[in-house]
């Protein structure tokens, strides 16, 4: 696989909500081994950009070119403040929900699916919580579980929206090396407010404040 081969391209994309434009004329290319960090002020359009990439928002103008099948293209880790901690779901089921595109609307899980979920949880240090209710997890543990959900389908692009918000310092310290390791197999696009950390790990740094501009970034090799 050619690492510079684009998986997805945004060409002059403008998008927003209810007729109100939030991002304008955005051009972005995501290649196979990219690690793109997105920074910018609140309300600048970072989350909107992620939603456009994933296909949750249809752009007002411009186009998105997918160079791969949409099925299993994205792993998505949304902001975790939208997660209802009281919802009747356990950790293992949460991870299995990452197989929605693979399973479709009505296929059942196989023993292999359960094994995959348990193995992932184990490898991210939360294996012992597999049967626990999600409300019993700390912020960092929940993010690890949601990361397992995002990667269980072996996506080509992992999209993360402020993954270290509402987590402790230990989690923040461990999380980006995990992403760096994952980047050997997939592209990563991450929104973060932690400029220092993100600029250490991202290969490409972009600022989104209605328009998208490229920022100088340290190479991973320099870290």
């Amino acid at each position, binding site marked *: 696989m050619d690492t510079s081969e684009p998986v997805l391209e945004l060409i002059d994309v403008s998008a927003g909500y209810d007729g109100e434009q939030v991002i304008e004329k955005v051009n972005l290319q995501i290649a196979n081994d990219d690690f793109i960090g997105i920074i910018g002020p609140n309300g600048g359009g970072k989350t909107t950009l992620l939603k456009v990439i994933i296909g*949750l928002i249809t752009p007002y103008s411009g186009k998105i070119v997918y160079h791969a099948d949409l099925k299993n293209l994205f792993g998505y880790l949304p902001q975790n403040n939208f997660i209802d901690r009281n919802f*009747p779901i356990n950790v293992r089921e949460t991870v299995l929900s990452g197989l929605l595109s693979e399973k479709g609307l009505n296929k059942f899980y196989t023993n292999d699916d359960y094994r995959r979920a348990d193995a992932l949880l184990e490898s991210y240090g939360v294996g012992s919580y597999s049967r626990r209710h999600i409300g019993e997890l700390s912020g960092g543990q929940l993010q690890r579980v949601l990361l397992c959900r995002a990667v269980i389908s072996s996506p080509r692009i992992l999209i993360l929206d402020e993954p270290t918000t509402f987590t402790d310092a230990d989690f923040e310290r461990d999380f980006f090396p995990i992403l760096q390791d994952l980047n050997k197999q997939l592209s990563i696009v991450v929104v973060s407010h932690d400029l220092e950390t993100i600029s250490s790990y991202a290969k490409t740094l972009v600022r989104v404040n209605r328009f998208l501009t490229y920022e100088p970034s340290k190479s991973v090799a320099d870290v």
Partner: protein
Amino acid sequence: MFDLFNYDFFVYALIATVSIGIICGLTGTYIVARRMVFMSGGITHASFGGLGLAYFMGLPPMAGATFFAVISAFIIQLFSGNKRVKEDSVIGILWSTGMAIGVLFIYMTPGYAPNLMSYLFGNILTVTSGQITLAVLLCAAVIAFFAIFNRPLFYIAFDREYSRSHHIGINLLETITTLIIALSIVLCMKLAGIILVISYLTIPQAIAGLFFKNFRSQLVASAIVSCVGSVAGLFISAGLNFPSGATIVVCFLLIFAIAWFCKKIKIFKFYSK
């Protein structure tokens, strides 16, 4: 008590009660999990507008109520996530204007509206054979729907946006679910009335939620509690000549109180964590 089975109207009412109990138990679990209780209240009260309009036009009231319920459900879905007009505001508008339209049309209709109270507070004993057929058919459809799609429905309820990111027809599934909720609410109005429908969609689910922290278990437990409470209420109301809808709601409340007490003193240990 068994004498009641000699009366056709009671047997009809019993069949309708069980069907509606199952429908409300299942759809209510989804409604509660997705925090759509307020939306359900909006649909219920908006349907009164259709009821009044149908009265005015000399059409079957339930047809008018169904039309308004479905339209208002889709209007709410359309405004879901809208940044300019909040979903809660849309629900509030539909809630109040539905009632207002209903009152105005009933006021403008010449003569007396004899069955109005049965729509506001429910009277399952006046259920028609056509409504029973509808209830049984919808019950079968809802059971099949939840049996086949319980997993994606479960995930939509948990994290809608994440589910949509998989591009597997989640929007269509949501639309069908919205339609089912609207139809369930209209059918339930016959049993409980507009004022009391919400209790059918929330109290059995609250009881199930006391014991089960698993969506599928909650679905089954809610349907069972809903049936047991409804049938018990129906027998008591028929025996004591009480209004059926209100009696059933009081039965739900008693079951909730007993369940809460049992949970408190840890009588049952079978339930899942």
